[in-house]
């Protein structure tokens, strides 16, 4: 048994263009580097991506969007249709190729939420609603 004195590392794994990346908090990267005795990579200037051509927010959004779309049982084409955006646009967003604006993300979230409610509807119609949301994530 190993005593667990280290803080939990909360990270996300994503794949973009065939390359796998791990997204973790900067403070956790700093911690890991310190523990491992390696030089801590210098801080990235605020507002710019840490690696050229790679945007953490874009990657995180892409990965979570795909996960939520699949959980709602929607194909990419179906979600695009419901959200009223072009399928090519959604495809680019999900591949982390473009950063959607607030209005577009909102359309996607609204469409996914509606699809999730539809999925739950048959189960809820037979009984009174108890737990409104017990969606994913530990």
């Amino acid at each position, binding site marked *: 048994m190993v005593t667990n004195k280290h803080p939990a590392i909360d990270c996300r794994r994503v794949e973009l263009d065939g390359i796998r990346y791990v997204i973790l908090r900067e403070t956790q990267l700093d911690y890991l580097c310190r523990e491992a005795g390696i030089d801590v990579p210098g801080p990235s200037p605020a507002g710019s991506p840490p690696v050229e051509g790679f945007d953490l927010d874009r990657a995180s959004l892409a990965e979570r969007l795909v996960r939520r779309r699949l959980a709602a049982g929607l194909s990419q084409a179906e979600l695009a249709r419901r959200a009223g955006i072009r399928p090519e646009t959604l495809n680019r967003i999900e591949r982390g190729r473009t950063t959607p604006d607030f209005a577009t993300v*909102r359309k996607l979230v609204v469409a996914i939420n509606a699809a999730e409610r539809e999925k739950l509807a048959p189960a809820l119609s037979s009984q009174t609603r108890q737990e409104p949301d017990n969606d994913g994530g530990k």
Partner: protein
Amino acid sequence: MTVENDCRSRQAVVSRDRVLSDVKRIVGEELGIAPEDIEETCDLVSDLGSDSLTLVEIVMQIEDHFAITVPDDLGEKVQTVGDVVEGVWQLLRGSRDD
């Protein structure tokens, strides 16, 4: 309309401190952070680890909670917790003054 009256009376009693504490609670719940660790100056993305999907979800929760509609151009500009609080506060005051 009764709904409108209801909202107005509710908005009239909401103080800025109350907006701040409710926003901290909602942001904290969405991001899994204790509300007491959240400051107005915290940047939602770089300090609190949000992404644009979570940001939209936070704004939608806030809309439900305060019975307001946050325009997309305002949502686009939001960066810090303070920006959210200020936006909500202005929207509540604006709709009350109408």
